């Protein structure tokens, strides 16, 4: 009841704002997030920063990611090599920058692909129901019942090495979770009165899904996205560790962590630097996701 009063109250405030001609646009919402949630803004800048580093990698370092300097193997951070060198004398900073390209791409592209698949199948499954639902969900169960790494390995072996194969493998292993969440959202939304009202207006099922079901799934999608990007980054590291992901001399953060593992005692920066990078990006995605959900979800508005 208290919550309701509160909502009424904010609704009145908003109605007042609307009367004064202040409508709430996307930019306004972003401004509000900027004002309310400094952490989310900071996280956005962290992500942007890493994206910039990845894009500008060749401009930022004099070395190439495969230049070896066997005389200064495993050297500690110095003016010449800001973050030291690895077991073959390659500059760690350079490899970190190039690794950001792979890790960010692997985090974002397969996640988007898996979300497209998951959202489509999830909405169809939840809205249509019956046998279609059963078939799609059993398919999702099959995918989820395999250890995802094992499934990814099978796909990688079938498709061969290469970054595209990683994309495909990760997309195939992670759509099922998205589909399940979106299906359950759709099941709830399908029963809402505004969907019934739309049906009573003779609106087509396709339009109902597009107009009324999908937009209400967006908050969950944002949260899912921010959780799936880090897990994709981590999966790529695991694949690279097993020798079927990114291949040397190319670089990725996961690969760097795993190569540095052997020298953890003598040259801890080899593992610690890419680990810190992974942690920063993963946390940044999570904080940004929380912040976005808070402002984009109308149910949570102003609460």
């Amino acid at each position: 009841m208290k919550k309701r009063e509160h909502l009424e109250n904010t609704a009145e405030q908003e109605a007042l704002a609307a009367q004064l001609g202040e409508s709430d646009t996307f930019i306004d919402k972003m401004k509000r997030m900027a004002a309310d949630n400094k952490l989310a803004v900071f996280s956005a800048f962290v992500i942007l920063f890493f994206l910039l580093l990845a894009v500008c990698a060749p401009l930022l370092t004099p070395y190439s990611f495969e230049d070896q300097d066997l005389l200064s193997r495993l050297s500690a951070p110095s003016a010449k090599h800001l973050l030291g060198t690895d077991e073959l004398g390659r500059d760690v900073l350079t490899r970190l920058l190039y690794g950001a390209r792979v890790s960010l791409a692997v985090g974002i592209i397969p996640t988007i692909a898996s979300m497209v698949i998951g959202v489509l199948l999830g909405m169809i499954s939840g809205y249509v129901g019956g046998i279609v639902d059963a078939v799609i969900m059993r398919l999702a169960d099959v995918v989820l019942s395999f250890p995802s790494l094992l499934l990814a390995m099978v796909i990688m072996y079938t498709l061969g090495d290469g970054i595209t194969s990683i994309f495909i493998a990760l997309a195939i292993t992670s759509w099922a979770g998205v589909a399940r969440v979106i299906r359950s959202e759709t099941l709830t939304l399908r029963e809402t009165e505004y969907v019934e009202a739309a049906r009573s207006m003779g609106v087509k099922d396709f339009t109902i899904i597009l107009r009324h079901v999908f937009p209400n799934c967006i908050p969950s999608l944002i949260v899912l996205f921010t959780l799936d990007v880090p897990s994709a980054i981590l999966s790529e590291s695991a694949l690279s560790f097993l020798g079927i992901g990114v291949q040397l001399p190319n670089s990725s953060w996961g690969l760097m962590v795993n190569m540095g593992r052997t020298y953890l005692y003598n040259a801890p920066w080899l593992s610690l630097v890419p680990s810190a990078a992974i942690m920063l990006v993963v946390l940044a995605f999570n904080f940004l996701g929380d912040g976005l959900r808070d402002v984009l979800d109308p149910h949570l508005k102003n609460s």
Partner: protein
Amino acid sequence: MDEMLLEIKHLKSYFFTRKGISPAVDDVSLQVPKGKIVGIVGESGCGKSMTAKSVMDLLKYPGRVADGEILLEGRDLTKLSEKEKRKVRGEDISMIFQEPMTSLNPVVKVGKQVREAILNHQKMDKAEAKKRVIEVFRQVGISEPEKRYECYPHELSGGLRQRVMIAMAMVCRPKLMIADEPTTALDVTIEAQILKLIKNLCDTTGMSCLLISHNLGVIAQMCDYVYVMYAGKVVEQGDVFTLFDHPQHPYTKGLLASIIHLDELPERLSTIPGVVPNLMHLPEGCAFCSRCSEAMECCKIKKPELHDLGDGHVIRCFLPAEREAAHE
């Protein structure tokens, strides 16, 4: 006799559950004349909403129309294809719901939602459609329609939201509007405004309205004809004056007796004893028998049929026949 817009003949809508068949609407016949407001009244679970949803074909699994005809200007809606039904919904018949709070999509601007209702049925460009929406907003008494067009549902009060819902129902100029307890969720002053609006719209546009309510006061104020439902059946029907002045069925009498009159407050409020029987296990005789103050022996054995009292006043009860027999 008025020209009929909607005729429901022997409609049976059942829920086919695993435990058995639940006859939520059992052999209901009902007529809505052109330009009139017809009310269905009854307590919760008597089949009022189910009747309305049957007309719209919005019943949810496991419910469905098992038998009967629903004629809109002579066309049987139950026999239409899905595509034709979609055309009827919204264009010929539209519906407003009980909860204006949840009947609007929270993430879409209200103007857009109403505009969608037009674009769905008519080929019109967006600017033209917007003009029409604003025109209807004005018609349903929304102040500053241009500004409201850009509002999200949570920015509007309950009364305004219900007006938006009515606008959405009106926008394609339907022949029939089904109002399923349109004011239950609103407070009394807003209720009066909304009812007045619906009545005005019917008078000015010649639209018919099927008004569903459990509130006898609302029905008395609004309707031309009234159907009283109990346990899935129509138990009494007639024009509003006959029915309220001379109720014949014990159930209708009971309902009217339980209205509180402010000038003569009784010590205890009058009620109808007992509860509605479970639809799955209806008694052999009259469904109201166990609660009826005038129940007779025959009520327990036989189901009463409709008995015509003349002037369209019909009741489902043995009493009039008994009385006639006693006279002779």
